[in-house]
């Protein structure tokens, strides 16, 4: 039996999935605490013990691959020139690399901005600005300011290629570690985020894993390949595209409702599906990840309720308004809490529905009507997700909370709001065994096994 061990060093738990590569099926799962802040080996040892107890003896794993969102995840700050252009492209690159964005800056950095960047203490800074042959002044000014700052983290330079060497020289002269890669926007309106994503991933493997102390357990695994959100995105990409041997699910969306944020990943071009619609704005990344920092089931439950309205959430949950207010207070004050009675379960479900609705609405593009002399014209900003064929739910609330159909269907297009380009008639699947990250990691060594294994664990969601 050829086997692989896929490890997720999470912020709360260390999770394991053991996979039989020949059968492309899961052998077992294990879980331990997250111990990155003390000694990462403790949590991993505990998780391996748990796995062993489930499957009776650990096999000699051929691959032992890990991803990590522990110790605050991959904290990044991005810097670009125009907010909607290179600054947005830099943001997209960082999010696609699985980063947790703690700051996104545009134009020249001010003294206040530098103080803010220093306070964020990011793991990596992505410095962009200017198209190739375009503006060089601002990226050089920003490099000079970062060089003078107390920031010590690696800096990935992905801006105007004519200025990149000089920007790197300024930073290196102040002993900042620098990687130069291709411009995130080489031509005006052309998005080129892949090289920056790859550079960020390399810096993550080479430096961040060590800086966070994850390599203390180095002899217990082969490599920490990427941040966990990047593994999920890689898994989503594989499930969508398939391999030479086996076709995938086509254009798809993954929704991860967490305690602090709701992440949405899309794998599709998102071009206009309706005739006569004109796409407007920056082209969208084919692999797009958005993180809604104000939509989380616990840390940000109050923000979800504020956006949706307590009355609406209470009505959706079918609990009295007063009781809904009490539950909100309880879960906000106790972020580890799992629902303890029927009311709390229903409240959580309503909360998750509101989070999914808002997160997918924001991730999806929208149509607006522009009146011209030749009549009204529909302009599309963002991705048209209406032709997305599959929506996959992942994350604790969806996997354990029940009512996944009700929650995931909040991702669907609403006939009353045709301007929101949400998926129309996708299949709804649930990653109930939490294997998407493992699928993404496995794709790095065995795409066919990863695909078969991933597809086998995406379970259709029936109507409740």
């Amino acid at each position: 039996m050829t086997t692989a061990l896929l490890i997720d060093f999470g912020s709360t738990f260390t999770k394991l999935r053991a996979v039989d590569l020949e059968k492309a099926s899961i052998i077992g799962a294990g879980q331990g605490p997250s111990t990155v802040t003390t000694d990462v080996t403790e949590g991993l040892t505990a998780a391996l013990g748990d796995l062993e107890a489930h499957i009776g003896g650990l096999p000699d794993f051929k691959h032992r691959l890990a991803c990590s969102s522990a110790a605050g995840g991959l904290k990044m700050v991005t810097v670009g020139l125009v907010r909607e252009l290179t600054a947005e492209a830099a943001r997209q690159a960082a999010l696609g690399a699985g980063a947790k964005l703690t700051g996104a800056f545009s134009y020249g950095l001010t003294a206040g901005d530098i103080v803010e960047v220093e306070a964020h203490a990011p793991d990596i800074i992505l410095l962009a600005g200017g198209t190739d042959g375009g503006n060089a002044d601002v990226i050089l000014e920003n490099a000079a300011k970062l060089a003078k700052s107390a920031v010590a983290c690696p800096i990935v330079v992905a801006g105007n290629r004519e200025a990149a060497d000089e920007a790197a020289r300024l930073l290196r002269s102040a002993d900042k570690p620098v990687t130069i890669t291709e411009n995130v926007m080489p031509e005006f309106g052309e998005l080129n985020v892949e090289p920056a994503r790859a550079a960020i991933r390399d810096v993550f493997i080479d430096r961040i894993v060590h800086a966070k102390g994850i390599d203390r357990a180095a002899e217990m695994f082969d490599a920490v390949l990427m941040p966990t959100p990047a593994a999920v995105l890689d898994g989503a990409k594989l499930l969508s595209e398939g391999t030479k041997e086996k076709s995938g699910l086509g254009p798809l969306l993954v929704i991860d409702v967490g305690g602090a944020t709701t992440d949405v990943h899309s794998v599709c071009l998102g071009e206009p599906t309706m005739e006569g619609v004109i796409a407007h704005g920056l082209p969208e990344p084919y692999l797009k990840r958005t993180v809604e920092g104000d939509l989380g089931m616990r840390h940000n439950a109050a923000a979800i309720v504020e956006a949706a309205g307590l009355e609406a959430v209470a009505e959706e949950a079918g609990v009295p308004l007063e009781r809904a207010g009490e539950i909100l207070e309880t879960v906000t004050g106790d972020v580890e809490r799992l629902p303890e009675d029927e009311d709390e379960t229903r409240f959580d479900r309503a909360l998750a529905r509101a989070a999914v609705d808002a997160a997918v609405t924001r991730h999806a593009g929208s149509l607006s009507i522009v009146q011209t002399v030749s009549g009204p014209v529909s302009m599309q900003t963002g991705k048209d997700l209406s032709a997305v064929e599959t929506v996959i739910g992942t994350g604790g609330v969806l996997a354990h909370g029940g009512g996944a159909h009700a929650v995931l269907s909040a991702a669907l297009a609403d006939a009353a709001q045709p301007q929101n380009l949400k998926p129309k008639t996708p299949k709804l699947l649930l990653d109930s065994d939490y294997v998407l990250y493992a699928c993404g990691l496995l794709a790095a060594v065995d795409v066919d096994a990863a695909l078969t294994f991933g597809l086998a664990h995406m379970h259709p969601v029936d109507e409740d």
Partner: protein
Amino acid sequence: MGTGGQNSNRAEITLVTGVIGADTHIVGNRILSMALEEAGFKVVALGALTPADEFIKAAIETAADGIMVSSLYGQGELDCRGFRDMCVEAGLQDILLYIGGNLVVGKQDWAEVEARYRDLGFDRAFPNATRTEDVVAVLDEDFAARRQG
């Protein structure tokens, strides 16, 4: 290669083109953009339905030397109000601004129309059916004057 042999500096000049406002008339602007590229300029073509601020944002990012605004539907004066001021605000005080097309509704005295657009901060205004060679010649002239001056 292009036909820009006469002016070797064209390759170093970036021009932003587009049709301003809620105006879908793209053909003339596309012909102009192609002619400018053919002449050897670096062209950033924004296309139809381009709001004023997007011309300016594109010019910042690409460090453009000039913005060539097209307006074909008679609303140009409304769309271009404060255009030069916005450029100044964005640090583009020295950028060359051209506008061309059907710049007003109905038949009006061209000298008056041109004066109005110069008041809006455009360095040059061109009536409909201006030949692209003429635009290229004027661009060469204006950029040569800048280099000297």
